[in-house]
């Protein structure tokens, strides 16, 4: 896994929020690697730490209280955590781009599209305004925006959501992106547009040989887009494998739950969707034991006593579960003998 083609390597990342009410362990030990030109998905419920992970990679914390306390992030052989602010600016936007959830709010509402694109291009490339303008128009055309020149003069509110997302993607391709982080890029868009945007991303990836880190809670999207998948729960990686493996042989009870809660086109649609009972734990209180214990149907004493380590069960397939970590592998659907704490 440590070959030269690795573009991003995250090891033992811990990002905490220091607030008056306590320390929220938003990301509490996440590790993964991403190869050049490949796509990795991060899935999990809201609040599981997906977005914070991606923000940490960009070193762009959503709030001042957040801090990376442990771990390392290596991008193309460079330790991002040691980058100076100046180098960081170069890294952001040029080598690594980020696409956010809501395209409508991702563009500054009071500046024209063109202005924002030119500004960004000239931030990274020492070219004239005219050249930057032309490049921006080119990029807009590339992402399939009709009447690109006209759009340059438009304000964000004059474009549709899908259009905005395309503009943002266009911005990404203006530089020399080696990595695109897409944080739920389609959630805010309607279904038909979703597919188009994803298609576009894929197309660009093929053309530019860019790695994509796709954050989503939609397993369908993952299936469609990703080479590898990381499942996160309450700030931890619970399972990490290539997509096929994960879909075919999911190992973690949480992944099971997640897959069950997703409609499958392939199988009988009459099958009822299940939800995972209970709510995720308060992130200020995690780190003592398995974070999933209170919702896990297979919970055992050990789950309440220590944090399960992330173990490579099969080559390339990592799971963090006490019950999968040993001789007696847990089988899906097994009846739990110890339901003393069931609520």
């Amino acid at each position, binding site marked *: 896994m440590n070959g030269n083609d690795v573009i991003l390597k995250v090891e033992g990342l811990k990002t905490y929020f220091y607030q008056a009410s306590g320390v929220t362990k938003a990301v509490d030990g996440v590790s993964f690697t991403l190869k050049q030109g490949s796509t990795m998905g991060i899935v999990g419920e809201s609040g599981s730490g997906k977005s914070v992970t991606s923000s940490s990679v*960009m070193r*762009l914390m*959503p*709030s*001042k209280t957040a801090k990376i306390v442990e771990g390392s992030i290596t991008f193309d052989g460079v330790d991002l955590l040691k980058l100076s*602010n100046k180098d*960081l*600016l*170069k*890294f*952001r*936007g*040029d080598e690594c*781009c*980020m696409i*956010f959830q*809501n395209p409508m*709010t*991702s*563009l*500054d*509402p*009071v*500046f024209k599209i063109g202005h924002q694109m030119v*500004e*960004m291009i000239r*931030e*990274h490339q020492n070219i004239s305004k005219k050249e930057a303008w032309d490049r921006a128009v080119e990029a807009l055309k590339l992402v399939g925006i009709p009447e690109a020149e006209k759009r340059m003069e438009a*304000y964000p*509110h*004059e474009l549709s959501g899908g259009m905005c997302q395309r503009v*943002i993607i266009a*911005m990404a391709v203006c530089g020399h992106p080696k990595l695109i982080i897409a944080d739920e890029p389609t959630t805010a868009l309607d279904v038909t547009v979703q597919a188009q945007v994803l298609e576009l991303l894929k197309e660009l990836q093929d053309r530019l040989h860019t790695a994509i880190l796709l954050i989503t809670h939609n397993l369908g999207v993952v299936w469609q887009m990703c080479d590898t998948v990381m499942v996160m729960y309450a700030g931890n990686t619970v399972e990490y494998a290539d997509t096929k493996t994960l879909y075919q042989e999911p190992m973690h009870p949480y992944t099971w739950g997640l897959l069950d809660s997703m409609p499958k086109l392939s199988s009988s649609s009459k099958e009822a969707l299940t939800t995972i009972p209970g709510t995720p734990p308060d992130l200020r209180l995690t780190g003592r034991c398995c974070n999933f214990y209170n919702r896990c149907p297979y919970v055992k004493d050990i789950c309440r006593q220590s944090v399960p380590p992330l173990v490579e069960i099969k080559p390339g397939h990592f799971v963090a579960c006490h019950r999968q970590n040993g001789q007696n592998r847990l089988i899906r659907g097994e009846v739990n003998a110890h339901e003393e704490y069931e609520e």
Partner: protein
Amino acid sequence: MVKMILKRFLQTIPTLLIVVTITFCLTRMLPGDPAVAILGVEASAEDIAAMRAEMNLDKSLPEQYMLYLQGLVQGDFGYSYSYREDVLPLVLARIPNTLSLTLVALVFATIVGTTVGIVAAIKQNTLFDYFFMVLALIGVSMPIFWMALMLVLQFSVRMGLLPVMGMGDIKNGIGDVISHLLLPGFCLATTPMATFARTTRSSMIETLSSDYIRCLRARGVREWKVIGMHGLKNALPPLVTVLGLQLAHTFTGAIITEGIFSWPGMGTMINTAINNRDYSLIQGTVLFSAIMFVFCNMLVDVAYMLLNPKVKGA
């Protein structure tokens, strides 16, 4: 765009008409006879009657109102009996004084207030933030006439650093003008400055925590550009609104501050006018301050339109 501005401009006319009407009604309700106020209490009844006739006070109220309106339309704001001068030149002579004081105060307040607000927003929850926000809280809570007294006591009376009153004369050099402007200007600037600091801070914090600011950062845009251009421009609309309100506030403050510092502006004149029951002058000064206010508000609205592309496009 031009159409909208024009429409906004036309909207001010009924407002001003209402101001004229309210002022007219209020001044006629003031106790005291302006004719007596002018002639003095020893004047004979015939003299007073003659004066009342000259001032049109013997006519019925609707007639007086119509006469006043007619005059206004023709640019005749009436005759000030306490100053023995036409109201229009009298007011026009004062406006620059008041305007220079209020504008200097406002410009100063805007620059300092917004700067402090921006820095406080960036350094949110630091000692700097706390210190200046407490200061700003004191600033908005300060009775400025009291502060004026205290400042005069300290800087003029005790330390003898600054002149206590009056307006400087450019003939005595720019230093004279500035030293005379310092205390009244600062007093007038206090409330707007504090308000700006508070508004800028909260507006900036709100803006800086918005998605597009994160996106800009993610795109590698330099921090000063993120804050100085994008942050500020987005945080501006509430500031513009506050600026409009503060314009009015500052003018109100000027009425008292001018009195304390003997600043020869509209404020002192309004006081004299009310004390002397000088109807035309009260109406004139109120009307002019209302015109100034309405005009400033119009500018604010136009600025608002220019700043907000959603409105602009519509």
